[in-house]
Each structure stands twice: as structure tokens, then as C-alpha cells.
């Protein structure tokens, strides 16, 4: 199946944005990093289009970019740790949605990533392990810890996989 780069970008953009929104906790940072990841896909399109899972690749690039961003500024990192989830984008969100974002943002990065893959991307454990380049057992362990933390925040989370 020949995929055009424009179609690929338009298809992946909402999911990339959502992933980064949950991962970074910031609307504009998520938009910026999603576009940066797509720019890298465009740049390497001749190779990306031949991959088995171009979407997985651009997702990995996006997470790498997010990690890079966080590490760039130590001051920002400290501020992010102290402050609640930054969200300058005005939305009529209800308290539950805000609580979900905050709970996910407070998870350690690896747990946050596995929660996003499992519950936002709806990936089975095996696929999540492939995305994260780790063993299924590692994913299950991370997921178990994350679910425990989320439940302690009052969220009802179950994983039937």
C-alpha cells in the first residue's frame, strides 16, 4: 500500500498530539513536538514509508523529542515537578479530565508511556513492548505500578490484557 506523506501526517497528527499532550502535559509543547516529529518523517519519508510500522517510528521519535525537551532545561524540569500540569490552552474541561491528566503527568516517564500506549493507543502488551523496545514482562510491571498509582488517585483503572 503506497501511503502519501500528506495522508500519513494528517492521519498520525491527532494521535501524536494526544500522546504528547498526555506525556508532556502541555498543549503547545505537544503541538510543537508533534510537528517536529512529522517534519522528521517528511525528511526521511523515502525510508519511513518502507517501514513495517511508520506510525510506530514517528511515535518513538516524538517520545524521544519530548524527553529531549524535558532534559534541555533543568530549571524547567524542576518547575514542572513542582507545578501542576501546565495548560495554557483554555478548555471547558471537567474536573475528572483534569484529574486524569494530572494523574498521568505525575507518573514516572516509563509508566506514563506505557499507560499512553495501552489505554490511549489501545495497544496490547506485546505491541507496547515492541514500541518501547523492552520485554513484555517489563511492560506488565510498569503497567501494574502505574495502575496502582492511578488507583491511589481515585481513578478506576482495569487492564484485562
Amino acid at each position, binding site marked *: 500500500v503506497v501511503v502519501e506523506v500528506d495522508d500519513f501526517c494528517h492521519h498520525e497528527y491527532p494521535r501524536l498530539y494526544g500522546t504528547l499532550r498526555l506525556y508532556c502535559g502541555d498543549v*503547545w509543547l505537544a503541538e510543537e513536538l508533534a510537528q517536529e516529529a512529522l*517534519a*522528521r518523517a517528511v525528511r526521511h519519508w523515502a*525510508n519511513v514509508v518502507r517501514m513495517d510500522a511508520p506510525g510506530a517510528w514517528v511515535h518513538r521519535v516524538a517520545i524521544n523529542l519530548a*524527553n529531549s525537551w524535558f532534559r534541555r532545561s533543568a530549571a524547567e524540569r524542576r518547575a514542572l515537578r513542582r507545578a501542576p500540569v501546565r495548560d495554557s*490552552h483554555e*478548555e471547558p474541561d471537567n474536573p475528572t479530565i483534569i484529574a486524569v491528566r494530572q494523574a498521568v503527568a505525575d507518573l514516572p516517564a516509563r509508566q506514563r508511556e506505557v499507560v499512553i500506549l495501552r*489505554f490511549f493507543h489501545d495497544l496490547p502488551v506485546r505491541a507496547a513492548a515492541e514500541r518501547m523496545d523492552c520485554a513484555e514482562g517489563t511492560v506488565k510491571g510498569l503497567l501494574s505500578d502505574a495502575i496502582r498509582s492511578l488507583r491511589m488517585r481515585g481513578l*478506576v483503572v482495569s487492564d484485562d490484557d
Partner: protein
Amino acid sequence: MTDFALLLKDAAGQPPRPLNMAAIRQRATTLGLRRRISLWTWAVLATLGIGGATGATLATIGHQPSDVRTIHGERDTPDGPVHPDRNSGSAVAFTPDNRSAPGGLSSTPVSSIVAVPRTHGPDTTTTTGASEYARAATCSVDTVGESVRTCRFTATAAGGWNMYFVDPVNGNFNSNAHAEVRVTRDGKTTTYKTHEEQWDPVDPADRRPAGCADNVVQPGDQVEVIVYAPAGDWLQNGQDSNRPDIGAGAGQDWGCTNGTHQ
């Protein structure tokens, strides 16, 4: 699908603005140009012998007394065993008296984006008479803004080590930088070193230093973290606003398992 999954999808929301493909293409073009220019510059400098030091060369470079910054810049300690002098390239003899750094070091670990859970085998040597370093749970150094890149501590907690890199805002980077972590226990020093990894699966030229290990530091160990960055390396030549940097750390919460802990 659980209720939580539905909630998470709501929490993720929708992009605030529609995707602008023209802007994406423009950005992709800029990425490519930056990459080509930087690689070409590096090749010219290396050919001319300007700042083309290799890792092997660096191993012989000494140090000058200088401050050491942690990643957070929270604690400065005097002196470092390896401090390539960018201006003169001179080597200054190591001074054992300077090894004792007063005060504790503290930093929160960040680590490799490609936290590879494997490391090349450590080297082991036997040393005697090492000075006691300041007691701390962890220490880390980076290359942001300064050329100093070493820290030492006497471990108060168990942990591992890791080296991380940070992308520039635009473009990729290659670097000849590398890191070492020396752990001295009962007079025996074990040295852990980074190796080179290909980072971008579609860009074979995009190679980066990487290395980590879990549980290599025990309380009471004397630990030294060193980041070597060749003079002329991108790490030092890039503009502050768009410069990659690398760093390494050891001790509590460092290692492969916690490789992406922020």
C-alpha cells in the same frame, strides 16, 4: 475498553490548530540543511586538524582546576580530573590533592533517550590511597554552557550510572563525546565506559554515545563521573539556543531501569 481509556482519550484532546503541511515541509527542509552544513563543517575541521581530537587523544588530556556544575547547577565543586582546555589544548598534570571535593552533590537524574540496557564490560584496576570524596547519594555533570564535566562523591546509597544526550532544538547531532564512571571499592577501581549507538533507524550517520548499568554503586564507594567532549565537538561549537548537550551521572536513581526517569 475501560472507562479509564475513554477518559484518557478525552484528556488527550484534539490539536489546537489543524496541521499545516507547508510548515511541516519547510521544517523538514531546514532539518536537512542544518544536518548537511554541520556534517560538512565537522569534516572540514577534522581535515584541517582543528578541534578534531578523538577519544583516544582526549584520554591523554589533563585538567585544570575549575568548577564543576551538576546538571541543575545546584552545587559547584572545585577541580576536575579531566578538563580539555579548549583554548590551548594543553595538558595539566592531575593533582591528587584536588580529588577531595567538599560538600555534597545532589542532582536529579536524567538519562539517555536511548537508555540501552547493556554496557560494555567494565575495566578493573587496583588503586591505593584514594582520597575520600564528599558524601552524596548521586552526582551528575553535563556540557551545558561550560567545558567542565566531572564530579565525584562517596556514595551514601546504591545505584547505577547512565549517560544521556539532548537533541538540539533543530537537527540531529553526532558527537565524539563519551563518558566514564569510575567506581572505587576496597581499593579496586572499576571503570564503566560508553559506546556508540546508532540512534535514528533511518539515518545511519546519526550516532550517539550511550551506556548504562544498574546496581554498580554501593554505599561507601568512591565514584567519579567524567564526560569527555573533544575540542571542536558540536557540543561546544553549537549556538546556545540550539546546542545539543550530553551528560552522565551515577548513584541513586541512576541506571538503565530508570533511564527515562525525569
